[in-house]
């Protein structure tokens, strides 16, 4: 199964077992743009698979209300970029109501959202906004990188009593590639390739790219697939660093602020003495994502960027 099929199967199985799960989103009865919800309304009825108008704010808010009322809503927010339109309800209500109610209410909400450039679709359908999401206490963010983990993330999100945003990598939606550790938990980072010279921590398409490029390199690279982006947990990175003492972080985001800054902060605070030298990060420039093919290709992280980062961290730190 590819990732969309795996997500759909996991969602359908969960809906069959738990009648409180309700799917909401634009065109979900017709299957949505990537056929995530294809066939679900025929199987579970229109009351459990609810089409919404193009109103991310209201249907996300409605999902929060359904969660408060005892349902388990699953919303297809389509693109990460559309989180901007839903953000008041996600950031101010979904994330905060358990805390602000003193524990009286929980918000068991699952948000499905895809992220990633490479489609020439421009700056409103390509962003990775995990960096924003990780800044809001109260949200859980999963970024699965293989079909099994996409399915496990959907199940984990629907089982969890808190709001969980599952960010699927646009580039991998039709990928069938498995990864080492596919039978583990989606809630913790995993080592998908063991190595002892340098640790490369990343997720999504870059995890697969890292596996491909390091197969050709004369470097022993340990690859950590991050999986859980919020709340952040760097313990797997720290364990890896105790062997490699060198760290490269890569994520498809603009270099300003972001997820990698949060990871660096935790690693420096908790694991500074494990490092032989500075952490090297790989990300995209601080510009909106351009649409033209030549510009978007230049914007996106590629194999050469990963290799250069791995080389630099080893060469400079060995030379020093």
């Amino acid at each position: 199964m590819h990732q969309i099929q795996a997500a759909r199967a996991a969602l359908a199985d969960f809906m069959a077992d738990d009648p409180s799960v309700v799917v909401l989103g634009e065109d979900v009865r017709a299957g949505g743009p990537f056929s995530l919800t294809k066939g679900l309304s025929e199987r579970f009825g229109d009351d459990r698979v609810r089409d919404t108008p193009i109103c991310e704010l209201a249907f996300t808010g409605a999902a929060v209300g359904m969660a408060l009322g005892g349902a388990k809503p699953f919303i297809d927010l389509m693109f990460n970029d559309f989180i901007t339109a839903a953000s008041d309800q996600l950031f101010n209500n979904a994330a905060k109501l358990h805390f602000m109610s003193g524990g009286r209410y929980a918000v068991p909400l699952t948000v499905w959202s895809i992220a990633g450039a490479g489609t020439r679709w421009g700056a409103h359908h390509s962003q990775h906004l995990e960096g924003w999401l990780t800044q809001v206490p109260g949200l859980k963010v999963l970024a699965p990188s293989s079909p099994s983990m996409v399915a496990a993330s959907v199940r984990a999100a629907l089982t969890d009593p808190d709001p969980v945003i599952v960010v699927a990598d646009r580039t991998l939606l039709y990928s069938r590639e498995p990864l080492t550790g596919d039978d583990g938990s989606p809630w913790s980072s995993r080592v998908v390739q063991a190595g002892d010279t340098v640790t490369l921590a990343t997720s999504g398409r870059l995890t697969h790219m890292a596996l491909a490029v390091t197969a050709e390199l004369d470097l022993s690279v340990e690859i950590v697939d991050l999986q859980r982006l919020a709340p952040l947990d760097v313990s797997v990175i720290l364990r890896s660093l105790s062997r490699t003492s060198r760290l490269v972080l890569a994520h498809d985001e603009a270099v300003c602020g972001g997820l990698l800054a949060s990871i660096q902060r935790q690693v420096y605070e908790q694991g500074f003495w494990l490092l032989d030298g500075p952490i090297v990060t790989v990300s995209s420039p601080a510009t909106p994502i351009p649409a033209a093919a030549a510009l978007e290709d230049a914007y996106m992280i590629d194999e050469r960027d990963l290799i250069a980062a791995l080389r630099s961290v080893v060469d400079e730190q060995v030379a020093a």
Partner: protein
Amino acid sequence: MTPAEADQRARLVHWHAEMMRLRAFEEAVAEAHAAGELPGLLHLSMGGEAVAIGIFDCLEDHDRVFSSHRPHSHFLAGGVDPRLVMAELAGRQSGLCHGRAGTMHLMSDRVVMATGIVGGTLPVALGYAMTRSQPAVVACFFGDGAVQTGAFHESMNLAALWKAPVLFVCENNGWAEFSSRDQHTTVGNVVRYGELYGIPAQEVDGSDPEAVRRAAAELLEPVRAGAGPALLECHIARLRSHYEGDWREQTSEGDPLLAVERRLSELGVHDEEINEVRAALLADARALCRSVLAGDDVPDPDDDAALVFASPLST
């Protein structure tokens, strides 16, 4: 006096006493805030008492309510223990939300939530309503400032489309923060949006609890029967500035207590009776505030981290 008149008199006396209870709470809160004893960004609900009383009179125990950023009267009229509300305002562990909410974000079982984001409860209320079984309904209070938000229009459209059992109750006090309504919109009355979205709608004098109750009862009948949402615009006064402590005195005329008192006078209820009850209620509210401030424990910041999630993950 006919039996019907006697009934009306007794009901109005009861409602008026309830309205005075809500007012006394806010007066005690305002005094303590002005004295620097109560913290918070307080938006008092003085002026909306008749709306709160009239709406709750139509609601059953199984109905649920969503509130706005002027929530105190909604919670008190909804039967929430005033001590829990006062302790929450005071930031005490004994508060309704253990001091994690404060004035604008109160949450309880029956009055589910208030909000610091104008319009923020409108979509939540309609989603919550979709989980209720007939004949239960949801009532959602909001101010006229919320009507200019996208959340209002998205929610009206979605609620109508889904036939959500919600009574949307607009408390139109003519002010949106520091601007009058005509500085925010070219649309006259909020009730006009009912026709646009195909939602039954009425507007009433929100200083008259009987008028509010009658209109809400009429509108709720089809909502309970599954016909979809309804909209009630209540014209009320804002008796205080936007928030407590603001130097601008942007208020409006139309104290609902005085309006009800004029009617009571016609029905032969004497000022002395009213003043006696009023004084007792204000004394109670002040005593409650003093008692909470003097006796209730402050929350422990060490407990905060465990409250972020219902199911915390290891980090």
